[in-house]
């Protein structure tokens, strides 16, 4: 009797499993044929990092404030700041801005930390190359990548400093957009002309 019940239960459950599987026969495939079809990326997708430019002037938004380079957990950003501000925009700009895509973790901390809408992680994900060295993206290439990236100004540039306090290494970095008072440390002042130490 027990054996009969076991056999019955076994057969029943095998059939139940098969019925479940066969129910799926008519379904449409959920996979895509990749190189021909592509998944649309979400707006927030974190892929290759690009530098954004001002659509009007075509210049980089970046003021080379170094915040992103300091927050990057894997030290993937290497940047150098111009000695003189740009004559047109009256802002400092990066003379060198390199992102090492071999180490970048696509964490998004740089985008979060930047106060000038200058750096963004995009939905681009196809960046395989044959030569590893070409993964070191320089400023102009990053700018080119960012040309067609739409963005909205989520953070206003900081108002001009009234009286810039002395360089205080402990002052909170502008990671907090909500913070009302304009935090001003020399490297972060957009249009500052006076020479600094």
């Amino acid at each position, binding site marked *: 009797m027990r054996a009969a019940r076991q056999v019955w239960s*076994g057969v029943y459950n095998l059939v139940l499993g098969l019925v479940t599987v066969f129910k799926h026969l008519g379904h449409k495939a959920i996979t895509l044929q990749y190189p021909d079809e592509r998944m649309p990326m979400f707006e*927030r997708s974190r892929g290759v990092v690009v530098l954004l430019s001002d659509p009007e002037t075509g210049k980089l938004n970046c003021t080379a404030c170094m915040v992103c380079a300091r927050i990057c*957990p894997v030290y993937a950003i290497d940047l150098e700041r111009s000695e003189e501000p740009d004559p047109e925009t009256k802002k400092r700009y990066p003379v060198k801005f390199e992102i090492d895509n071999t180490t970048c973790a696509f964490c998004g901390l740089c985008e*979060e930390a930047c106060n000038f809408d200058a750096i963004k992680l995009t939905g681009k994900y196809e960046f395989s190359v044959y030569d590893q060295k070409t993964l070191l993206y320089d400023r102009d290439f990053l700018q080119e990548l960012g040309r067609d990236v739409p963005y909205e100004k989520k953070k206003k540039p900081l108002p001009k400093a009234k009286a810039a306090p002395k360089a205080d290494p402990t002052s909170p970095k502008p990671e*907090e957009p909500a913070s009302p008072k304009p935090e001003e440390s020399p490297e972060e002042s957009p249009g500052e002309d006076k020479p600094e130490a």
Partner: protein
Amino acid sequence: MMVDSPDRPEPLTGDRNLETEEFVVNMGPQHPSTHGVCRLILTMDGEVIKKVVPDIGFLHRSIEKIAENRTYHQFMIYTDRIDYVSSMNANHAWCVAVEKLAGIEVPERAEYLRVIMAELNRIASHLVFLASFAIDLGAVTPFLYAFRERERIVDLFEMTCGQRLTYNYMRIGGVSKDVPKDFVSETKKFCSYLYPRVDEYEAILTENPIFLGRTKGIGLLDLPTAINYSVSGPPLRGSGLKWDIRKDEPYSAYEKFDFDIPTGENGDTWDRYKVRIEEMRQSARIVEQALEGLPEGGIKAKVPARFRPPQGEAFARIEAPRGEMAYFIVSDGSTKPYRVKIRTASFCNLQALPVMARGWKIADIVAIFGSLDIILPEVDR
């Protein structure tokens, strides 16, 4: 049986031909059912396992040491990589520990969002378990189904934080971004979609005679042994103890939700599987309740970028999908932790494998190892 062959000039006689020898089998490091790179050194007597020695360390990245050179904010991305199948939970544990250290109050909405993400991630992690466990035992169909459902969870995560594996979503004091507009409706849709799917997996696996033959009564782990080996998570609950940090030491907003803790009876492989299946349903219940009661408000407490917690120590643990995950932080008052110790469930659960696998056949080790749901990067860190 003796065969006369030219290779054996001297026919073996006497007792010697009846002698059996132990045979050492190397399973791994690259073995599909070790789920990563783990080497199991099996001492076999015929087909019966006499001894198992897990050889770990292939994935060691010294994350604990790295923590000493990173700020508290920066270390968040490394927690993703401790347990990449449930990064949200690893993020969560780090946040809870640092917040405890610095005494930061987290806004209510952020706590709810954390719970939603952690539970969705628990479902995703259990789906990966189900998929790999089923395919280890030769059932290919549930593998495909489970990954289909996981894809939807991963889409929800990508929609919110932009990544599909290393989410880096939580922040000290809250979460990084608020959920997008359609997240709540999409997640609700997903939850109602999940229940029938879990029933489907059960229809294929739970009572399937082949599956029962491979799992029922195999790899017994009795409760005292489990406790002595600090086993936690589903393997412990499978052995019959109702122990879940979410209930017993609630963190975040878990005390506000109503859910059950499934337990097994015998502590065999099947029980551990069943506990996880049931946990998926319970997690979906928690997600539904949290979405229902999602409060409005801020998502992040104010934490300066140059965050310096006070000197001292903090220990916090959470219930990750694989068991208890805990961080012990020693702070010297600077922006970087002085020392971080990470307790991961996989490491402790793996220690019980030699006890569980002893005396079973070599084919069973796949089922036993699979039922522990070990993630190797979590073992090695």
